[in-house]
């Protein structure tokens, strides 16, 4: 089995699907000859030709809009938005068109497409290369929202997303493209090759959309996380010596509520973790669901660990990023109450 980092895993998912399905086309800024600024589409143009893999004008709105037209024709566009921070010029087409097409045409036109985009902090990218806008998509009926946290899941989820009959916003945690990150920015970077999840099967396989993964079983606390924060959370509970169950949501919409309920009923405590700003972040929906469904099982308020309600400030990368200290305080709180 090959050992892949997340970029290679995503690249491989493209290759598998482009070879399997002639209707899959890939475009976006710099994705063609160059293979994308994070190199996720490297080699695709060479292998599949310029009319299936090509550079797009710098117009996120135009990229999404033409993908809508292509999906209406019957293709399956897999488009890249270079950074999630730049998805907003395409927001109208995503919200008003992509998300609502199946509904408003009663299924006559559907929008099978994947909108891939790197998101999140941890790379000193400043205000416009660090954002985590996922909750802005979870509010939009008709979209699925997927976020992998390992090479294995990245490939399997991307294949599932391409095969999905509905549009998928596919957020890629760029901080962990090359290796998992435990939140300790002052420690040496670990490559994926040292991690079991970098063993990625060849060829076609899927990780189902809508299914969370229990990445660590535990009895005393349920931690809900996704993307980079799965790794930060894992490290934090080990450091704090808490027997927590960690659920990697993997899909935000549709959410695997069963997995969450089952765990919280067991542990009686819950901590929700994300990089995005706190107010109206997806954590709010998670906390709300947990208190709606598990109210009488809760021994303490559900806590949130999040980014701050500010833009992402360049020099304060590690004061903004919800790292081990923020985790520690929240863990202490949720366990103490």
């Amino acid at each position, binding site marked *: 089995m090959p050992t892949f980092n997340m970029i290679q895993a995503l690249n491989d998912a493209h290759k598998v699907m482009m070879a399997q399905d002639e209707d899959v*086309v890939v475009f976006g800024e710099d994705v063609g000859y160059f293979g994308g600024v994070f190199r996720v589409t490297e080699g695709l143009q060479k292998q599949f030709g310029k*009319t*299936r893999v090509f550079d*797009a*004008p710098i*117009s996120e*709105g*135009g990229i999404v*809009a*033409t*993908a*809508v*037209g*292509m999906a*209406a*024709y*019957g*293709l399956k566009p897999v488009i890249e938005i270079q950074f999630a921070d730049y998805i907003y*010029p395409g927001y*109208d*087409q995503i919200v*008003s*068109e992509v998300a609502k*097409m*199946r*509904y*408003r*045409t*009663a*299924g*006559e*036109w*559907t929008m099978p497409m994947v909108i891939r985009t790197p998101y999140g902090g941890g790379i000193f990218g400043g205000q416009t290369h660090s954002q985590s806008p996922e909750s802005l998509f979870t509010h939009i*009926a*008709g979209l*699925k929202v997927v976020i992998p946290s390992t090479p294995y899941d990245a490939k399997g989820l991307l294949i599932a997303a391409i095969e999905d*009959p*509905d549009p998928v916003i596919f957020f890629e945690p760029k901080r962990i493209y090359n290796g998992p990150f435990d939140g300790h920015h002052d420690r040496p970077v670990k490559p994926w090759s040292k991690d079991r999840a970098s063993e990625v099967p060849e060829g076609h396989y899927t990780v189902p959309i*809508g299914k969370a993964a229990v990445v660590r079983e535990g009895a005393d606390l349920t931690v809900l996380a996704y993307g980079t924060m799965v790794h930060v959370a894992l490290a934090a509970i080990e450091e704090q010596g808490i027997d927590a169950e960690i659920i990697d949501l993997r899909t935000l*919409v*549709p*959410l695997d*509520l069963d997995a969450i309920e089952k765990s919280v009923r067991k542990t009686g405590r819950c901590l929700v973790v994300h990089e995005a700003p706190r107010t109206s972040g997806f954590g709010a929906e998670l906390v709300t669901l947990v208190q709606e469904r598990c109210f009488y099982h809760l021994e303490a308020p559900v806590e949130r660990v999040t980014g701050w309600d500010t833009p992402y400030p360049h020099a304060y990368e590690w004061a903004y990023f919800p790292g081990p200290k923020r985790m520690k305080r929240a863990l202490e709180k949720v366990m103490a109450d």
Partner: protein
Amino acid sequence: MSDKDPSLRRNAPALALHVPEPPFRPGDTPDFSSLKIPAAGEAPRPDSAGPASDTYPLTMTLVRVLGDDSKAIGAWDPKLDPDTLRKMLRDMVTVRIFDDRMYRAQRQGKTSFYMKCTGEEAIAVAAAAALDREDMHFPTYRQQGLLIARGYPLTEMMCQIYSNKGDRLKGRQLPIMYSDKPHGFFSISGNLATQFPQAVGWAMAAAIKGDSRIAMGWVGDGATAEGDFHSAMTFAAVYNVPVVLATVNNQWAISSFSGIAGAERATFAQRAVGYGIAGLRVDGNDALAVYAAVKWSAERARSNHGPTLIEFFTYRAEGHSTSDDPSGYRPTNEAKAWPLGDPIERLKDHLVATGEWDEDRDQAMRAQCDAEVRAAQKESEKLGILPQQGKDDIGSMFEDVYAQMPWHLSEQRDEALGEGRS
């Protein structure tokens, strides 16, 4: 407190903001005598496979075929056979009658909303005639003529307008937001201009697949200001996309005249020059000119010579929609004063002038169309009108959000059904 400190500047003149104002407002007497209308037959017709720059002079004039004597004249005369012309006339008349009936139905409380295309019937009807049946349209809400010309059942349209049991869109869309794949009519969006780059995307897909079908996108003069217009033009130009991009310049966008979209300085066709693609400006009330221009553009696209932007110059003869009363912002008799005439009368006059039509046949045809529309209305109203809807099959509200209904929608459906029963 503003930043400015005029004293900073020596004797520079004061800057001034120009806010465009239409020539006539309520109370004024509309007078279009200063409007320069090129004579029919004057515009040259370049080779549809030629360089885009050959068309640039055509972006600042008007392609017109029907002369003052109602004869077809010049290089753009599409030389259509009389049957085709009679079908176009009939389709246009049907559109007009359909609009009148549905407008009235809205006024009678049978539905919530309606939009007419009065005065613009030639555009969609002749475009439908000029494209192939398999080509795909990405329309706005004023291209009902496409559906009617392609033979979409009037009852289907009306059921949509009534959101009734026969509505294939399950009552989910505002009236007139039709969608029909078999008739090559893409789902109308309430969000202006979104369809314009989508048309380009569809045509890109056709080109990727080596298909031979092309796409035609539609947008209003006002909506050309949206960023999506620019996306469409840019992508169409970059990838030499086989698409016909049409701007229907009916000179109004609700209460804003076309100057608010930039028409004081450039025609809408002229935008084509900026991107180096072909552009044509066409008398939109001249069905033959419309046909000829769309045909030319389709030929160009289909032979891989690239996209064309067409401006159809016309006039929105009625209110924007049933929610609008234009007497609040323009003279009530402006439509009558508009010099390019009624497209239906102009085509009829042409047929009469060429001996292919007469008053009796015209009356009979109109009576027939009227009867058809009435019959369709009766038929569709059997399936219900809006005020009766929204009570049954509430569960359907939760379908088609996704291919498979996820748990949260099933739960909400059950809640909604519970409410329905309570």
